[in-house]
């Protein structure tokens, strides 16, 4: 008996796409996401290049597709722990981690109002705090609260239990295991920002005004910790002079030997964030090559024309801090001017690359030398999106759409042949 359902692991833009495309074509789909909300990394982006449009717009359409799609069921706070079987007949063990809030939750916010403890808000890359009972973010889908089990004081506190009029809070909730039978699997667990702290010469983690590109997205977001004001983490001062350091980790044998594909455009986009917030600001981009494929070249050309944007060919050797002012100083060779430069900035943004995030140690998953899901390793299991290779959003969506077809083929293959 060939199972005609598809499991999609990861509900970022790739997983969402693969799941929805397959479901809308008429296949039963299970979508498993480790976070408490769908949307993954893109939900934490402020705008997409080159249109400078908000990711929540497309996510809203995707969530509406999920709302009206009976073929698709999703599990949040859930992780795949084991995969067994073969193409057409996989058995998948999924651990459903406790959310401590059940489906009765109406998102009325009463639990957060009474919760006495705070937790670091990982959605905003720990730049602010939420209560232990919290909504992951304003656009969170599903619109349901979560309790951080590590921060929560538990039943001895229990204030949220009292405050909830809907019996939605279950502080005793335990992890449980769910078994899914599926015919094919799309692995779309995405990427994580390369750990910038490992590039010791750049001072990330030591100098507060050295941030990464993903943090910059939160600083620029109206939903972020600063309400969209781009300020220095050290003193909250509005930034006047910002440097972007490209290939922070990427194209580097000691870190990520590959190119992360999106960082050039991401930094050019973030340059527009800085200039839109403060037209008088100065932006410098230190680069090796500017990689703007296809029509992205137009966006590059547009940003390049901005009088306050300077492109400097050269990879900085070192970043220093002026301990008194908190300013950061970028030391680099300007290769076109053929001189060593030392420039002082309010803020340095490291364009950290994409490291694949294959997630759980599932033995069946074929990973390549760099930890990406390799093509054609296991029949019936398909990588999609940035867990396969670094991709921009539109390319990840295309890739995920193609992975959905591959998965569908797996579920019909034996029927066709048999």
């Amino acid at each position, binding site marked *: 008996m060939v199972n005609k359902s598809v499991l999609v692991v990861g509900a970022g833009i790739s997983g969402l796409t693969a799941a929805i*495309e397959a479901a*809308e*074509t008429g296949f039963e789909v299970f979508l498993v996401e480790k976070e408490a909300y769908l949307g993954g990394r893109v939900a934490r982006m402020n705008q997409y290049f080159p*249109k400078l*449009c*908000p*990711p*929540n*717009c*497309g996510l*809203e*359409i995707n969530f*509406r*597709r999920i709302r*009206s*799609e009976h073929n698709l069921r999703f599990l949040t706070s859930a992780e795949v722990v084991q995969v067994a079987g073969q193409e057409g007949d996989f058995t998948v063990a999924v651990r459903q981690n406790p959310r401590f809030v059940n489906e*009765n939750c*109406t*998102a*009325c916010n009463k639990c957060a109002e009474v919760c006495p403890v705070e937790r670091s808000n990982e959605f905003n890359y720990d730049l602010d705090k939420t209560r232990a009972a919290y909504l992951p973010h*304003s656009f969170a889908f599903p619109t349901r609260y979560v309790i951080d089990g590590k921060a929560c004081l538990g039943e001895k506190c229990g204030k949220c239990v009292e405050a909830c*009029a*809907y019996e939605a809070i279950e502080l005793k909730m335990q992890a449980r295991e769910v078994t899914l039978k599926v015919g094919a699997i799309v692995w779309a667990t995405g990427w994580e920002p390369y750990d910038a702290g490992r590039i010791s010469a750049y001072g990330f983690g030591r100098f507060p005004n050295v941030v990464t590109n993903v943090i910059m997205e939160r600083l620029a977001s*109206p*939903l972020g910790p600063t309400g969209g004001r781009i300020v220095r983490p050290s003193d909250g001062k509005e930034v006047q002079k910002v440097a972007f350091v490209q290939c922070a980790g990427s194209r580097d044998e000691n870190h990520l*030997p*590959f*190119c*992360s*594909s999106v960082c050039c455009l991401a930094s050019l986009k973030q340059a527009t964030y800085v200039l839109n917030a403060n037209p008088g600001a100065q932006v410098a981009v230190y680069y090796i*090559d500017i*990689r*703007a*494929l*296809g029509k992205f*070249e*137009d966006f590059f050309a547009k940003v390049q024309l901005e009088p306050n944007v300077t492109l400097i*060919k050269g990879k900085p050797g070192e970043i220093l801090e002026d301990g008194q002012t908190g300013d950061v100083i970028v030391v680099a060779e300007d290769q*076109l001017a*053929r001189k060593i430069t030392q420039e002082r900035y309010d803020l340095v943004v490291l364009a950290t690359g994409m490291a694949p995030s294959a997630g759980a140690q599932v033995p069946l998953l074929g990973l*390549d030398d*760099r930890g990406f899901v*390799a*093509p054609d390793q296991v029949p019936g299991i398909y990588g999609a999106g940035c867990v396969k*290779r670094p*991709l921009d959003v*539109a*390319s990840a*969506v*295309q*890739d995920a*759409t*193609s992975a*959905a*077809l*591959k998965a*569908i*083929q797996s579920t*019909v293959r034996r*029927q066709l042949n048999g």
Partner: protein
Amino acid sequence: MAKKIGVFICTGCSIGEALDTEALARVATKEKKIPLCKKNAFLCGRQGAELIKQDVVAEGLEAVVIAACSPRINYDVFDFGPSTIVERVNLREQVVWSHPADDEDTQAMAEDYLRMGITKAQASELPVPYLAENMVKSILVVGGGLAGLTAANEAALAGYRVVLVEKEPFLGGFAGRMYKSAPSRPPYTDLEDTPVAGLVADVEASPLIEVHTKTTVARIEGGPCLYDVTLEKDGQPSSFRAGAIVVATGARPYDAARLDRLGYGRYANVVTGVALEDMAREGKIQRPADGKPVQNAVFVLCAGSRDPGHLPYCSSSCCVESLKQALYLKEQNPDAGVYVIFKDIRTLGRYEEFYKKVQNEGVIFIKGEVTAVSEDGSRNLSVEFADLLLGERAEAAEVDLVVLATGMVPSTVDYAEQGAEDCPAGNVPTVQQPVLNLAYRQGPELPALNYGFPDSHFICFPYETRRTGIYAAGSVRAPMDLAAATEDATGAAMKAIQCVELTSRGAAVHPRVGDLSYPEFFMQRCTQCKRCTEECPFGAINEDEKANPLPNPTRCRRCGVCMGACPERIISFKNYSVPMIGNMIKAIDVPEEDEEKPRIVVFACENDAYPALDMAGLNHLGYNAWVRVIPVRCLGSMNLVWVADSLSKGIDGILLLGCKHGDDYQCHFIKGSELADIRLSKVAETLGRLQLEPDRVRMVQVNIMDYDKVPGILDDFAERLVEIGPNPYKGF
């Protein structure tokens, strides 16, 4: 007979505390004469939902009006099956969470929303899916290159019949002429055989794929599941029906003859990358001028690309292709001197490791700009260039071969046939190459996005173009390399399959996937004004010779732009129509002038502006309580009669909240918000005739993240209306 309706009011989430729900219930029972009206403190809980379910069954309710939270929440709880109409009245996010509790204006707002919701439920009918005779699910693939072969093969592997059409006598296309392809798998350092030969064999062996070579598409009529396709081979037509179409006609190299400054056409030893590929495939790369061996070669990247005088865009694949060809030379002669002059080396992703390998093989990379190419008496070339890193002019002398990495031009346009004036930098070329020959009122080919590529404008939805059921794939859609084209074509095959599956059930495709409603035309009142046929963003409506609209429901995306365009209001959906919204407006209780409580109707795009209003509520941002929000499928579905309806009802102002339009438009129906803006500009005249101030009608572009700005937009408009004074038609 009137529809059997039940009204259910939730008093949870502060609704009960903030509002007089008894008074609210009386709106339903007394005013609207709905006998069944129940309140529950936790309507979305198990018991609440069960209560509704029981009444649906016991009372035979055809529609339920749920006055509770936003329709974006608890959609699954309040789903009572396909035969029950559900209308949600958003009391939570858009009333009690954004307005003061226990307040006369908040109460009035809630009551109006309930009136409007009941009115809508009364007017709404269950859609009946559009199903035609002889709907088919086979896929037509136009183009037999890598992308077309892939699309055909992948669709067949999922069990679908495919007709593959190729104009040349053989399959394989551009990639079929390649000697090798760049690495596609770990360790990403080794050249590979192209996948084309294997694909051709698979396609030719597949029982589900019918291949037509030396064939072109002469004509395509109809729509998804109903495409009547006429092919032409040797002047002989043949016809069949197809369900969806993948366009994979590929790209052409940019015309190198225009690059004479680089010596092409003047010196035989200046060749294009394509010519080098031919030599490599034939086994010997040599100087074309005299057949002498190649001891050294210079690759010139961006030959035409990234050049405002030629192709302003990047052709995406030339860097990697040139690296590959540099290895051909090294493979043939390890001692050959190979130089690559580049602007930027664009080896994205894992190609970076290939770049490293090519560097290690001894290929020299120079960031520079070529200024001139010349030839000496022995036909050796000399390449002059600015070396940007050394900051000096330099010359490569005694060069055997100069290889131009020419860019890509989509096969759907013909640059050769047009002068520079047809293709000013950054503009879409005007001369189209016929590929599909669609019998569409809005033109025979896919509309181009930019530079002639029929690409999608949507980052989140890269397969969404303006012709439903027709998906462009591969380098015709955007410049791309082999690996990207393979993925793109597989995705396009997926979208084509999905389209035939949805369409054959009468359901819409993206973005209103699954919508079973479709526009119906009351033709007796049509005045042949052509607005619907011109304005449909998807070219869904054809015209007969008398200019009557001929709708093609399977091409329709259900945005309602036609409904908004029609001055005679003859276009309606079963669950969305001009009178329905008109009646909702009329259901608003407009206070007398002396009460000094203006009323504002807000038409809000349901994908962006409406969620932004919800978010304002979720964040408890207050705004003016005079507004009455009506979500619309797209602002383009706004019919101007609604403005008249509002003003004659005594409404003081009308505000349209829609998506950004212009070059970076965000409207998911492409032209909807722009059309609304255009229509609105024409309203000023009408207002003048009625002696009303044009400022009473305003449109603001917002996106979903503008929830923090929306309250200010509403308040600002309300203030302006106070300045203008009340609508003089109030009370008439």
